[in-house]
Structure formats: structure tokens, C-alpha cells
């Protein structure tokens, strides 16, 4: 398919701009003025719309089909949420208006905070972080501020992270200026408490943990873990990526966590948009509330305001109060469920266990336990006996009309396939997925080549990622540098059109 730049024709235009009569723009001083126009596309409106529509047909969303990516919680994105986020009273509101002009927005933020407090079992909330990993970083900054306030920040330099952690956790640790202490996972898929004991002391700032873990397993020793960390004067951070398993069933605050981030684009259905936006609000225990980023949302009876008066605040991690449009959608989602958010989690866990029960014989099962909302299988035997890897299984699933699950994560499971169906799926869809997975296991034995060479039914065949890394072409070349021309420029010369 052609790039939009390849469809461009000089002189075409897709949007007019008002030209006020009788007004000449002032001259831009010569040393600041643009000399060469940017090579933006030149197309009329119909061609622009057609281009992006065509692009969308080459993509697959949760609207299109089953999308069982582990730890991503690809659930249905309700359309009423899209309708209400576009209401002019929300869309046309400038973030810097005085509080009296934003009472509806502030009230919505307040209610969202209250629901998050209840779901997490904690005391205060900041809606500011733009994503889960920003929530993590903010949480670790809160750790620093909390300990600095007690005169312990210099001494407490380490954060403990299990070997099953998302990559964002260690990356956040580094960005926050902490050191990483890894802890092992035991044969039941829990943190190895004996390994942990030796690693937590007065130099420990805290723990970062997802519970259930990335293995989809609830840590049975969470109370002992809590005692170890709190006993050493350290804090506990909860990565909310897997919250969909436990809403209304177990609360991170009750598990002992002091700071929690919630992924609004996972548990609370903000659409993923091909990579974002998201929202990573944090909930904290009262002892950490003074350090939250500014502003926080405050309530005085019937009115709401943004409060900047937090003298011990860590500062600001993002502009304004946060990604408001994400709040609108998540709040709407929460209001659609009410207390039945619990049922949401129950169905998520039921769906996952159903898939696990039906698939565990055809694939390897690293941890033989009931799972929570997701579970991990391994293609290890398929690889050893038939040379078919987790990657091959993933690519072949595409031919059956499914988005593949997460592969090669968590790192402690070789040839991992991490599967999370979410509560949105009907049993028939789960059965179709089961049939496809069983079929691929048979194909691995009987016709491995069809699996190796998958996918066959997508707009492109398997893509050469090695080439993309060795010779990065990260923008359209416009024919500027023939030696650096990407495959596309050369193809354009030969191509008749797409």
C-alpha cells in the first residue's frame, strides 16, 4: 500500500483556513522565517479519508476479534464512552480555566478518585500520571519523598523486583535513581519468601509487585511478604496491570501495598488506540498523600477545585490534572458496572480458567494451579519435538482470525504464551480459540512448515525485523538519498499502485 506521501500531488489540499479580510500577517524576521516548505501530503479531503480508512482495514482491534494478549486486558471498549467524551462541555474545555468554569470536569475527577480509592482500599489519589509506567515512576518518586521526610532517603537505595516483572518495573527503578534487587519465583509461581528474607533490610526502599503476577497467579504468601517489607520500614508498590482479576475481590491496600497504579486502559477500558493513550492514576496510603503531584482535586461541600497547596509535593509529572478524556471513558465504564465490577473480575477469571483447562494438555504448563485472569503456557515441547516455537504458534493463530497472545514473556518461562481472554468474550469465541490452538498443536506434528511460514492470510507475510534493525529506515525518504532509499522507494519505482 502506498504511503500518503506517495499519493501526494502538488496543488491539492484537504482543508481550508479562514483568511480574515483586509488583514496582512506581520512579517517574520528573515533569520527566523521558514525557507523551505515542509513536505506534508497534498491531497483533497476524500483521498485523505480513503487513505486512513484503507489503513484501518489492514489493522486488527478488539472490535475486529479476540485479542488475548496477556497483561494487556483487551476488553470491549463501550461506544457510549466515545459519545460522551465528545460532548462539547468536555471537549471544548480548556485546562487552564478558572475552577468555577470546570465544575463538571472536577466533579467527574472527584468521583473517579473515590471509586479508585474504594477499589484499591487506599486513601488518596492522583490522576496525573499518563500511563502505568509513569505511575510507577511517580510512585517511586513518592518513595524518595517519604523517606527523605524521615531522613532515611540516603540509606534506602534498593527496590526489590521479582524475575517475572514487566520490563517497565526495572526501567522505572533506574529512572527514579534506585538500584534493583531481583528476587526469585518458586515452583508454585509465588515469590520465593526465603530468597526474599535475605534481601530486605534497612537499605531497602521497597517492593514493586504485580499481584496476580505476570504468571496469572495470586501470590499465596502476600501477607508474609507484607510483614517482611513493612517490618523493615520499607514500602510496597503495586503494579496495577493485573487488577482486572481482583476488583471487589481483593484490594491492593488490604494486601499491604502503600502505592498502587491503575491502568485505566486495561481494567477500565480506555481504548488502546494502537499504542495509547492510557491513564496511570495512583492511589496511596494517607502517609504518602502530602507528597502527591500537584494539583490534587479537592472538595468543599458542593464545589470542587484544584488544590496546588501541597508544600511537600514531589512536583508535577504531567501537565494539568491528567488525561481528562481518559477519565471520562473510565468513569463512564465504572458507572455502567457499579458494584458489579466484582462480576467483571469473576468472569475474567472464569474465562481464563476455562481456556487453561482445555489447553493445558496440548501445551506445556509451567505452574499447575488455578489461574487468575491470565495464564502462561509454554511451547517448549513443540519446539523440542517439532521445531515449532511460540513465535510460530503466534503467527499461525493469525490465519485462524485471532490476534496472538503475548509471547516470550514472562522471561522465566521458555517459549511462553501468555493468554488473557478478559470478561468480554462469549463462550463460543473461547471455544473457537481453543479449537485453533489445538489445531496448531496438531499441525506442528503433522505439517510444521505451514506453521513456520505463517501467516498466510494477513495483508503481509512474516516481516523481516532483522533488516529493519540493521538498516533502520524511520521516515519516508522523498527520494532525497538514493543510497539510503528504503525498500519502499525502490518498490515505488516499480509499482503501479495500491
Amino acid at each position, binding site marked *: 500500500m502506498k504511503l500518503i506521501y506517495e499519493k501526494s500531488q502538488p496543488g491539492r489540499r484537504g482543508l481550508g483556513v479562514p483568511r480574515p479580510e483586509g*488583514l496582512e500577517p506581520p512579517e517574520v524576521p528573515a533569520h527566523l522565517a521558514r525557507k523551505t516548505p515542509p513536505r506534508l501530503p497534498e491531497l483533497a479531503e476524500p483521498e485523505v479519508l480513503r487513505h486512513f480508512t484503507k489503513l484501518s482495514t489492514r489493522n486488527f482491534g478488539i472490535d475486529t476479534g479476540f485479542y488475548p494478549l496477556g497483561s494487556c486486558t483487551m476488553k470491549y471498549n463501550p461506544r457510549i464512552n466515545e459519545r460522551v467524551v465528545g460532548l462539547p462541555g*468536555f471537549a471544548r474545555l480548556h485546562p*487552564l*480555566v478558572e475552577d468555577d468554569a470546570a465544575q463538571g470536569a472536577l466533579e467527574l475527577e472527584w468521583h473517579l478518585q473515590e471509586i479508585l480509592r474504594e477499589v484499591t482500599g487506599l486513601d488518596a489519589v492522583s490522576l496525573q500520571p499518563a500511563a502505568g509506567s*509513569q505511575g510507577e515512576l511517580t510512585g517511586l518518586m513518592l518513595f524518595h519523598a517519604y523517606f527523605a521526610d524521615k531522613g532515611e532517603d540516603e540509606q534506602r537505595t534498593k527496590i526489590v523486583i521479582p524475575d517475572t516483572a514487566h520490563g517497565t518495573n526495572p*526501567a522505572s527503578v533506574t529512572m527514579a535513581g534506585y538500584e534493583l534487587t531481583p528476587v526469585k519465583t518458586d515452583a508454585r509461581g509465588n515469590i520465593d519468601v526465603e530468597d526474599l528474607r535475605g534481601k530486605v533490610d534497612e537499605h531497602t526502599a521497597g517492593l514493586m509487585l504485580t499481584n496476580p503476577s505476570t504468571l496469572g497467579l495470586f501470590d499465596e504468601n502476600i501477607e508474609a511478604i507484607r510483614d517482611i517489607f513493612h517490618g523493615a520500614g520499607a514500602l510496597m508498590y503495586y503494579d496495577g496491570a493485573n487488577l482486572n482479576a481482583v476488583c471487589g475481590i*481483593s484490594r491492593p491496600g488490604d494486601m499491604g501495598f502503600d502505592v498502587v497504579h491503575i491502568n485505566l486502559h486495561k481494567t477500565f477500558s480506555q481504548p488502546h488506540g494502537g499504542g495509547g493513550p492510557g491513564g496511570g492514576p495512583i492511589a496511596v496510603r494517607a502517609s504518602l498523600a502530602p507528597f502527591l503531584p500537584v494539583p490534587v482535586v479537592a472538595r468543599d461541600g458542593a464545589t470542587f477545585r484544584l488544590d496546588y497547596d501541597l508544600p511537600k509535593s514531589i512536583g508535577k509529572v504531567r501537565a494539568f490534572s491528567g488525561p481528562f478524556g481518559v477519565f471520562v471513558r473510565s468513569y463512564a465504564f465504572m458507572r455502567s458496572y457499579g458494584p*458489579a465490577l466484582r462480576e467483571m473480575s469473576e468472569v475474567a477469571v472464569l474465562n481464563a*480458567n476455562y481456556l487453561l483447562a482445555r489447553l493445558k494438555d496440548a501445551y506445556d504448563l509451567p505452574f499447575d494451579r488455578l489461574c487468575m485472569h491470565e495464564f502462561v503456557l509454554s511451547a517448549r515441547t513443540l519446539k523440542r519435538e517439532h521445531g515449532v516455537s511460540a513465535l510460530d504458534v503466534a503467527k499461525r493463530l493469525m490465519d485462524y482470525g485471532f490476534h496472538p497472545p503475548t509471547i516470550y514473556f514472562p522471561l522465566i518461562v521458555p517459549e511462553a504464551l501468555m493468554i488473557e481472554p478478559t470478561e468480554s468474550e462469549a463462550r463460543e469465541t473461547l471455544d473457537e480459540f481453543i479449537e485453533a490452538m489445538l489445531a496448531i498443536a496438531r499441525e506442528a506434528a503433522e505439517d510444521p512448515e505451514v506453521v513456520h511460514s505463517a501467516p498466510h492470510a494477513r495483508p503481509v507475510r512474516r*516481516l523481516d525485523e532483522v533488516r529493519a534493525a540493521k538498516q533502520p529506515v524511520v521516515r519516508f525518504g522523498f527520494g532525497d538519498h538514493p543510497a539510503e532509499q528504503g525498500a519502499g522507494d525502490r518498490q515505488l519505482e516499480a509499482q503501479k499502485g495500491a
Partner: protein
Amino acid sequence: MSYLSLTDADRDAMLAAIGVSSVDELFRDIPAGVRYARELDVPPALTESELQRHMEELAGKNVVDEICFLGAGIYDHYVPAVVDAVLQRGELLTAYTPYQPEMSQGVLQAIFEYQTAICELTGMDVSNASGYDGTTVAADACFVAKHATGRSKIVVTEATNPQVRQVVKTYAPGFGLEVVEVSHEGGVTDPDRVREAAQDAAAVIFQHPNFFGVLENAPELAAAANEAEAMPIAHVDLVSLGVLEAPGVYGCAMAIGEGQSAGNAMSYGGPHYGFLAARSDYIRRLPGRIVGETVDAAGERGYVLTLQTREQHIRREKATSNITTNQTLLALAGLVHLSLLGPQGLRELGETCMALAEHAKRRLQEAGLELLFPEQTTFKEFAVRTGRNAREALQRARAKGVYAGYPLGRDYPGLDDALLVAVTEQRTLTEIERLAEALS
């Protein structure tokens, strides 16, 4: 609950297949001490029609009909209808990050086109697939500069957006960075002051047009940084880049900014997108996702995420950033808007904003107000002295249906009488008359 398909029959069959007798048994691994035994204390469930009514009530409590001359980083530009139509395509809206490229050629190609547009506008060689917003990309740029230069000082101009500066200062301690500000003089930044401050600095960040709407001597600021071997990082407005020179042309190492002006509704502050682009030297240090071109097994052109080894899911504690979820959909909106405008449209958009802002300046002066920085050339925003406390002036103007601007005293000492007035292409001559009347 209409988002759930599960029937009693489904549940019974599934429990049987699993081999447990109740849903509750599925949670048996959770210790009793951390089980939540009550019903969630949250507001009751609403049907869709009730939800719509409730949300309309909330939206109705916001005031959006005062004529908007408020800017200060977020602007009331027109968002074309085609942007909305594209964003509502479910295949794009509800897709995940394109880690499986064969399922995601739509998003991947769109990001490649976005990266191309940002590079064209900024004169840079590589752009990432977006950052969270215009403030966090400044923090990202500091991280790049620290590792690229080995230095620990960041210089930022006081005339840069206060929230950008505040976010940089929040991130700095964790990065081991010291932040030094260079004050403005008369609404601009003196390159000699920058030259001095930039000794041993990793980077110099300056906004252009700056927070006051004033055009800085950007090439000189970049030169001052380069002389000290600090990376010049320009924080720019995409809408200005049809009339203003690209940072890459006048010597910058990186160009960053808030993308909202291209393609996004104001929406009380988000979600929007930050853009970050750099010279090719920095490609391996860049945070965030990057899409690259390649071929498939049949030799057809296709797109993939590339150089992923920079990112958290591979490099973990040594990653160039922890960023995972970004702002792809909003960046895509920006691409659509820019594609509709084209180069001529973007130029006209910049010219119209400048022309209307200049007209507003004249009309306000004729109404007896003074400009704060009368000597300076401005783009789509300017500061005016209201002759009283600016918040009071604002409230009087609001009573007349005009949201006249942003009180600068919130962020700059000694400027309590000044309002920052933004004039976009959405403002009409009549509305400008009302502004003059409301402030005089």
C-alpha cells in the same frame, strides 16, 4: 450487564470443564485475610441512557461558551471532521501496540507517516511514535542529553512554559541532573546569558515561540548551546512550523513540543501527545517506540517496530525510558490534520493566527491597554497589561462572555497585571472587538 455474554448455562459448562463447583472456588488461592468481604461501595450501575443523561449533566456544569482567548500551551484550533471519522475506526481505536506487525500494518504505517511529518516539520532525521505530552518529552530529552554527553546540568529558559520546567525539575533528581534557569529580559532570552550558563551543560532547552508568544532569537540560542557543546533542544509549536524555520536547519540537536494544536480537542488537558525528534546520531538513545520500514517474506514493503532493544521490554533497567503506552491515537489525529492542511494550508494557518493576533494587539492598544513586550515579534499569543489585577480583569471580561486570557502572575512574579492572550484561526474580527471591549 450488557458487556458480559455469560449465561448460567455457560457458567455451569465452564465450571464443569475446569473441575470446580463454583466461581468462588476459583479464588481459593487468595488468603482469607485479604479477601474483600463486602459489596463495593461505589455509585450504582446506570443503564446506557441513564449514563448519557448523567454525563450530559456533568458536561453541562462546565462553561465553554465564553469566547476563548486562553492559550498558554493548549489552544482552541479547529479540529477537522475527518480526524474524528478516522479516530472512530474501531480497527485503529481498539487496537493494541503493534508488537505483532502482521496484524497491525495500519497503525504501523500511520506511525511511519507521522514520524515522517514530524521530521519534515522540525528538520530532524528521526522521530519517535509520541511521548505523553509537551512536558514529559522535555524530561525525556534531558535523559537523552545526559547519556549522550555524560554531563549532569540542564539549562532551561525562564520563558519556557512553566509546567514544562516544573516537570523537568520533578524528573531531574532521579536522573541525577541539576537544572539551571536563564531569566528572560523583556520577554526574550539573551544568547550571551545562555552561552555562559551552557558551560558544562548537557542541554539547553528553549521554547520558540516562547511562553509569552514571543519569537526568540532561536538560531543564536542554538549556536550558544553548540559552542558550549551542550545539545540545543527547541520546544516548538507544530502550527508555527509552516512560517517559522525548522529547528534542524538552525542547528538544534532535538526538537520537542506539545502536539495538541495539530488535531486534538482541548478536552480539559488531555489526552494529547508530545512529539520528540532528533538528529540521526541520537537514534539509539531515543525513548519511545520507533517504526521502521522493511519487507515481508514475499518481498512486499511493510512496517515494524524497530530498534526495540532500546525499550523497557527488552533492555529493562538499562532502557532509554520506561515508556510503554504512549499517545499513538492522538498523534494519528495530528497526522490526519496535517495531511488535510498540507504545506500551503499549514502556512496559511500560521499566517492567519499571526494576522489576527496582530490585529488584536492593535485593537487592544487602541482601547487603551499596553503591550507587556511591545518591541517583540509574536506568533499567535501576546501579553497585555490590563491596568489592574489581571484576575480581576479576567473576571470582568468573563462576565461579558469573553475568556480574555491567562493571568501571567500565576507563574511570573511582578506580572500580576498581565494577561497572556491567544488568538487562533477560530477567532473572528467580531470576537476581537468583544475582547477589546471586555478589557477596556
